[in-house]
């Protein structure tokens, strides 16, 4: 079982890193939304799926390519998020977490059901953009160019988001508004608008991950439902609402899962939850969470 060659180990680490990119991007969106709005956004997986579908329709109906979709899909789906926040989630502000969870969970079921009704379960094909086809032979593995792009791009987005929230003035406003909205309002900051836009931004991140994943997986109505449970586990392990925590945990768990797929593939879809159980027993607030 442990007679693994270094070549295979490197390959599995790299593959894990790629999957970790998706976990990180998605859990980052969840963490931003939870940290700033205190909403457990169960619709995140459905919105990720809509991002992928958006890319598909932009390409096949309007002829808009992948690169434009990377910008347009998050904007469109993010706008949808803004509408959701203004029309529904805002009414739940100040109530128990459970209400937001139930609302977003219901939304996710409705959205996925509608998509499944129209597009079936096997999904639609989305090709890898011309510029990123092919790959590099790294000696220990063949790395598709597209996968390399996914890692670099999502790492950049993650770090930029972390920087914006933790190190800029806007981020400081946001964090302050979470701590004490009344006081921040007194300084003349439009807190409700800031919260709406933050939700839109979190949703945009989900849609962005959706566009990134479209060329790798089939664009399927249930692609988000399959992923979201793992991503929630990532957020819980990282510490609910911790930005850096969700990024680091996302990548780390991707790698861990990749290694499990090599050593004991049967357990690869449960390993994340085993880790979650252990972390919750030892550090109930998550690895990076504040008590």
């Amino acid at each position, binding site marked *: 079982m442990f007679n693994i060659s270094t*070549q*295979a180990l490197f*390959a*599995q680490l790299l*593959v*894990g890193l*790629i*999957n970790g990119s998706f976990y990180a991007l998605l859990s980052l969106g969840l963490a931003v939304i939870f940290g700033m709005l205190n909403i457990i956004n169960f619709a995140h997986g459905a919105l990720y799926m809509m991002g992928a579908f958006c890319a598909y329709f932009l390409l096949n109906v309007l002829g808009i390519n992948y690169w434009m979709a990377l910008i347009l899909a998050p904007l469109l789906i993010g706008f949808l998020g803004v509408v959701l926040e203004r029309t529904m989630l805002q009414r739940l502000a100040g109530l128990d977490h459970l209400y937001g969870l139930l609302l977003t969970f219901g939304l996710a079921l409705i959205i996925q059901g509608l998509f*499944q*009704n*129209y*597009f*079936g*379960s*096997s*999904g*639609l*094909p989305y090709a*890898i953009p011309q510029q990123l086809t*092919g*790959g590099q032979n790294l000696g220990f*593995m*063949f790395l*598709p160019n*597209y*996968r390399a792009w996914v890692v670099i791009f999502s790492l950049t987005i993650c770090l930029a988001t972390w920087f914006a929230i933790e190190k800029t003035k806007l981020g400081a406003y946001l964090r302050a508004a979470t701590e004490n909205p009344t006081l921040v309002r007194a300084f003349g900051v439009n807190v409700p608008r800031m919260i709406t836009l933050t939700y839109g931004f979190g949703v945009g991140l989900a849609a962005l991950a959706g566009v990134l994943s479209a060329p*790798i*997986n*089939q664009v*399927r109505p*249930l*692609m988000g439902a*399959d*992923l979201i449970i793992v991503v929630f586990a990532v957020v819980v392990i990282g510490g609910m609402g911790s930005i850096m925590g969700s990024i680091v945990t996302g990548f780390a768990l991707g790698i861990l899962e*990749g290694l499990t*797929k*090599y050593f004991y*593939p*049967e357990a*690869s*879809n449960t390993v994340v939850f085993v880790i979650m159980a252990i972390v919750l027993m030892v550090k109930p607030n998550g690895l990076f969470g504040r008590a």
Partner: protein
Amino acid sequence: MKTSVSTLALMAALALPGAAFAQDKNVKIGVLDDMSGLYADVGGQGSILAAQMAIEDSGMAAKGWKIDLISADHQNKPDVGVNLARQWADQEKVDGIFGVLTSSVALAVNGVAKEKNLVYMNSGAATSDLTNSACSPNTVHWTYDTYLLANGTGKAVVKSGGDSWFFLTADYAFGHALERDTTDVIKANNGKVLGSVRHPLNSADFSSFLLQAQASKAKIIGLANAGGDTTNAIKQASEFGITGSGQQLAALLLFYSDVHSLGLKMTQGLQFTETFYWDLNDGTRAFSKRFSDRMKNKNQPTMVQAGIYASIIHYMKALEANGSNPHDGVKMVEKMKSMPTDDALFGKGEIQPNGRKIHPGYLFEVKKPQESKYPGDYYKLIATIPANEAFTPLDKSACALVKK
């Protein structure tokens, strides 16, 4: 006095169902399938439509029969499937269960059908155990099984030079059975299996498994999985340059809906075995035209959906020949076994004593994009496997119902 009243009541109770028995022309059947998960395009709504069409086409209503159809989603979970089957038997009083994709669910429902004495005609599950070690006098296995897939695709691939294999296997009853049956065929044809990796059902990312397959240096990567798992594996194998580097994929179970979803560019050249293709002959074309016209997404039927149609047609013929519904699963299955089968979709055939429905299998190859002349024109027929060679030979069947 007291005794005579109770005796009378007892007699009435005994006599009443007997009286109803003579002219009972009420039948209730249920389609139990994956309606929402990764196999929903293989079965799902199309399975229900196929069942409706079979009931309409059988013309039973005009002959005084009343056929009720119900359906449910087993979510690919054996426990859900078993609960639904029990509920159907106890409360809904169904006579027969049809469809049931997903081998793990199919095997579990197999037990319930026997316990409750229902007719159980499976179209969708692959495991050949249904007519071997797990065979039952209540069960007919209609469309295909892992023995056929192994002998169709497996044998063809080994004979054309693909003599070393590495399996990517879905980690449940179906994948295990398909890997086992294919391994037997490979070894019988002097090939060898270099290894296998078992992935969880419904995996999104196959890159790790594909890298292991690549490292094995096997000539053939056998995909012992289905539906969304197969499509993801095929797509990612192309991305990782596996198909371009001398290794070949063998999709041991590929459905029309998978090819439709992936597109010809991604699937061209793949060889696989099916027992039904919409464009096979005039009979299949006529049925498929009527079917796709009524499907919301205008899809052509898969072989699983075709099997549901054909199995219900045969069940209706047996009911008609019997004159009334005995509400007795074993009796009806015996009746069906005694009658030759004949329908427009699978041609002439029969049901063997172990419950295996036999008909020809077809080895197909996916066409190149430029060879496809009209929508849905995806397959090229490579070889026909005669009915008597397509399935487990009776003398090798592990089923206790087969007299040796």
